[in-house]
């Protein structure tokens, strides 16, 4: 998409905090951006706990955006993740609703891999 191509050429990433250092996460995305929070193995994979991307973005495109930035992420992490938007679990595969869900500025997306250990 041309829109995406534009954003990747300019540095659209404005705030990200490295994992696993102690510290606070960026609590507010810059205007026109939404935040992605990474948990567990997703945070290890991208080596940060949060990141912002330009909004609006159809939720269905999110995984493509992440895969482009972190090749292999879809297969190695995202395929088994639970996805949340503003603390609500969403399912990208369900026909109704989520397929057309668009991520807006200020939204908070959670990428939550299952943790099995204990």
């Amino acid at each position, binding site marked *: 998409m041309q829109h995406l191509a534009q954003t990747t050429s300019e540095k659209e990433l404005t705030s990200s905090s490295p994992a696993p250092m102690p510290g606070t996460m960026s609590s507010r995305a810059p205007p026109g951006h939404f935040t992605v929070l990474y*948990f567990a193995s997703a945070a290890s994979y991208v080596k940060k706990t949060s990141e912002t991307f330009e909004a609006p973005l159809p939720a269905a495109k999110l995984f493509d955006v992440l895969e482009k930035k972190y090749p292999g992420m879809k297969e190695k992490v995202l395929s088994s993740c*639970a996805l949340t938007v503003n*603390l609500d679990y969403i399912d990208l595969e369900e026909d109704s609703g989520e397929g057309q869900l668009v991520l807006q500025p200020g939204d908070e997306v959670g990428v939550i891999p*299952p943790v*099995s250990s204990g």
Partner: protein
Amino acid sequence: MSPTEDVDAYVLKLRRQVRAAEVQLRDLRRQLVQAEKQADEARNLNKNHDRGLPFAQQSKRLAVLRNIGQEQGYEGHTNGTEDRSQYARSKRRWPLRKEEYKRYGRQLIMPEIGLEGQLRLRSCSVLVVGVGGLGCPAALYLAGAGVSTIGLVDGDTVEESNLHRQILHSTEKIGMSKVDSAVEQLRSLNPLVNYVSYREHLTPQIALQMFDRYDLVLDCTDHPTSRYLISDTCVLLQKPLVSASALRTEGQLMVLNNPSRAAGDVTGGPCYRCVFPRPPPAESVTSCGEGGILGPVVGIMGVLQALEAIKIIVAGISNPFDADGNIDISTVGREEASNASAPRQESPSLLLFSAYTSPPFRSVRLRSRRKDCVACSASATITRASLTSGSLDYAQFCGFVNPVSVLEKDSRISANDYDAQQFMLEWFRQTRGSEVYGPMTDTIIDVREKVQFDLCHFDRAINVPRSEILADDEPLRRALEELPARRQITVVCRLGNDSQLAVRKIRELRRRGGAIGSAETDDSLVMDIEGGLRAWTRNVDPEFPEY
């Protein structure tokens, strides 16, 4: 009178006597039946309420006892004698035993619990699967709260590396079965609870029978295979499930299958497969032993599990139907009665804990059951038969090959042989000099994470962490390129599993880079140490740290 008339009269007299005796016997029999029935009733009342009768039943019991007493010549209780105390005791019965009032007093006086909540706790059986970092705190608080029965499932023994977080065990118990160790400690905390031991790992074949006698299950295990198995079993048996996990500095917690309903019933709570329908890639699954874990992190999740379990029990486990679909009378009316004292059940949620982020707790609202869930939807394919027959291979579903053995025997070198080899090399170096020695030395690649590498490593080892190898070929390729040709490569890791995968990766990279048949592509030059550094400590150098 004639002699025959005398005999006839005697016969008549006897007949009359027999008839009278028969009537009397019938009467006595009837009285016996009645008395036995009354005695049974009194016994049942006693048993069902464990010597604590609700006041409404008191009068009935007294009536029963009075009847029996009257027939036995009881004339009413005497005043001020020792006999009175016996009758006094039977006159007043409290719902809980004296020591229970004391022991649970601090939670009894809370409106959220109260007498009713405690009675529910006391009649509830909980199964704790896994007696490790999660199971230890969970079992402790459940025992403390006074549930009826706690079942504990674990096939492992206590190890030293458990003790920083598995707080139910202790140093003297190293080597003991975890379940035995746990029961010993739990019993000393609360002997009023009944403890059931299962010194084995959970398998699909035994799961259904094991879970059946419990009202609620806690998943305190450490592997995706067991998590799916436990969830499937709970859906099949309609038991609520409290599932938690933790690794490094993060934890997850959710209450699943609550309300617990049969598959296809949309009012039921989501199961594990509704939240995580696809298992994580096998190579990404990290154990506490590999990834590390901070004690308080897993402790928090275990304590929260106990808390959620208590909340569920006190609110009334909302499963009015037993497994055959018949109404279980004892549960009907519970929820309505509890509404006054307990908060309404909220929609299911996934709790995320992260020790190093702010805020540390985040709660995600979950959906109800997935429409196409293979375990709990109308189109479910998982049945009891698929569990007991063994046709459901959870290991396969999660992508696990049985303990990593992907390299042929002669691609591996034992710790002792490697030691001998190094010894010989050293002799060569001393006798023939470094020109001969140089090309003979191997390159040691240690694929543990940097944090572990820094703890201890072979002098000549270079560190190419497994996580980097998984993410990207570059670090490994660079390391290989810098090696002179025909150099043996020895790969090592902690246990000898990751090193095998790394050997395969190295061979693959070299084949891609070099011409077929050339020295670079000679697979035999790449080997790993069987059993890893642990084997080195145990067989060669006991001073080398084992952790």
